[in-house]
């Protein structure tokens, strides 16, 4: 008998789109991790008279539905690579001393993102476990977010083509690491970016100690409307031009950002998280680097109550013509995604 705390979710990459596979990776589950199925109920057009003021139930029907899955969880220094590949689209692994560096971007070379089977094991109040498995899952939206004084979180929204409650519950197994958190982070803003390699992090930017929070939003712009006259089977979404936005909040300790706004500057930026877990001669690390932040918003907003002055900032992520729009770099003991 399960307990109310045995709520599980897991995932696995599909070798063939929308062909379910046994999930093999399991992650922490939060209240923000949800799944839903839109049955897309339709109503036949036209009025059928008969002394009623509502529609006849026999005139309504359901075509093939659409699944939406949202997962939100803290980023840890183990097992992050698998989910990151699903979220961003592209991941690579290169051996470094003590482990590997994994590099993630949204720079897919084909027309589609990798697809996944995602399973939820939801415990009812009476202890019964309801297992729901979605296949043909493609990341549609991604948010990597650092709030003020909290853990770094990754939120991924998946589009799902199929849903089944007939697939058995997979055996859960977790790999847990150290959670990346704001207290481990340092920021670089402006200056000349030395691009990362497959084995080294980005470097070279001017240290910037005023940042309180940041968020990287990616809309993969996948096409979830591929409804052809094909027996109700929706085709695999193709990946369009992603919309990448960046925002944050800074303390009003310098004119760096407001000056950049007025000047219309484009600034490189990165944030680096370093744990105390040894990795070779260093430590496990996560870095998010953006070569070009095209500044769009951010003017000082002094408070009239004497409190510390902070203000929100925003930028559009543009491409420098020679690098990905951003890198998420992950150095850990994981030697594979």
């Amino acid at each position, binding site marked *: 008998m399960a307990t109310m705390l045995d709520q599980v979710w897991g995932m696995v990459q599909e070798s063939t789109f929308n*062909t379910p596979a046994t*999930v*093999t990776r399991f992650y922490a589950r939060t209240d923000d991790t949800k799944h839903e199925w839109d049955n897309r109920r339709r109503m036949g057009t036209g009025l059928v008279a008969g002394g009623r003021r509502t529609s006849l139930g026999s005139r309504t029907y359901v075509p093939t539905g659409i699944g939406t899955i949202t997962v939100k969880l803290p980023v840890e220094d183990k097992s992050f690579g698998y989910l990151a590949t699903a979220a961003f689209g592209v991941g690579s692994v290169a051996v470094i001393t003590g482990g590997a560096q994994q590099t993630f971007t949204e720079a897919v070379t084909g027309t589609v993102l990798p697809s996944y089977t995602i399973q939820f094991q939801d415990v009812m109040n009476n202890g019964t476990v309801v297992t729901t498995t979605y296949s043909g899952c493609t990341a549609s939206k991604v948010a990597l977010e650092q709030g003020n004084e909290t853990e770094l979180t990754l939120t991924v929204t998946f589009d799902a083509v199929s849903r*089944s409650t007939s*697939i058995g519950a997979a*055996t859960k197994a*977790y*790999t847990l690491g150290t959670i990346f958190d704001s207290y481990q982070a340092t920021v670089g803003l402006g200056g000349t970016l030395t691009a990362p390699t497959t084995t080294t992090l980005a470097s070279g930017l001017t240290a910037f100690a005023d940042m309180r929070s940041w968020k990287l939003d990616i809309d993969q712009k996948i096409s979830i409307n591929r409804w052809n006259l094909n027996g109700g089977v929706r085709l695999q979404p193709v990946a369009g031009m992603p919309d990448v936005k960046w925002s944050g909040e800074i303390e009003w300790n310098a004119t760096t950002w407001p000056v950049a706004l007025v000047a219309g500057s484009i600034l490189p930026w990165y944030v680096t998280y370093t744990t105390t877990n040894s990795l070779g001669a260093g430590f496990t690390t996560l870095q998010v680097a953006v070569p070009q932040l095209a500044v769009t918003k951010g003017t000082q907003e002094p408070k009239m109550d004497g409190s510390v002055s902070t203000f929100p900032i925003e930028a559009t992520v543009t491409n420098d013509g020679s690098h990905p729009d951003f890198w998420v770099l992950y150095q850990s003991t994981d030697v*594979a*995604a």
Partner: protein
Amino acid sequence: MATVIVRYLGPSTEVFLPDLGVQVERGATVEVSEAFAGREPGAWTAAQAPTDGWPAQRTDSGWLVQDPGSGLLAQVGVWERVAPVTAKGAAKPSTTDAAAAASTTEG
């Protein structure tokens, strides 16, 4: 109770099995109950129609479906069977019955 010895293949350096309360390092083995080990995915067999949730392929003569397996052994490439089913205690020392006959050794 029959048990099975399975090996964790990775990719992580270690994995935690909350149902057993044990952590298994990559390359190490663990002795678990037959039910917990489950079975590997089966061969493709002919069928009249797809089975919900099972991999299926349409062929000129009908459908092929595959038993997806169960338990740890259904997770191909993550777990593998390293010893046949044995009577409990016949192959490997076990730490505790409460841990569903789970024990780990370095592989």
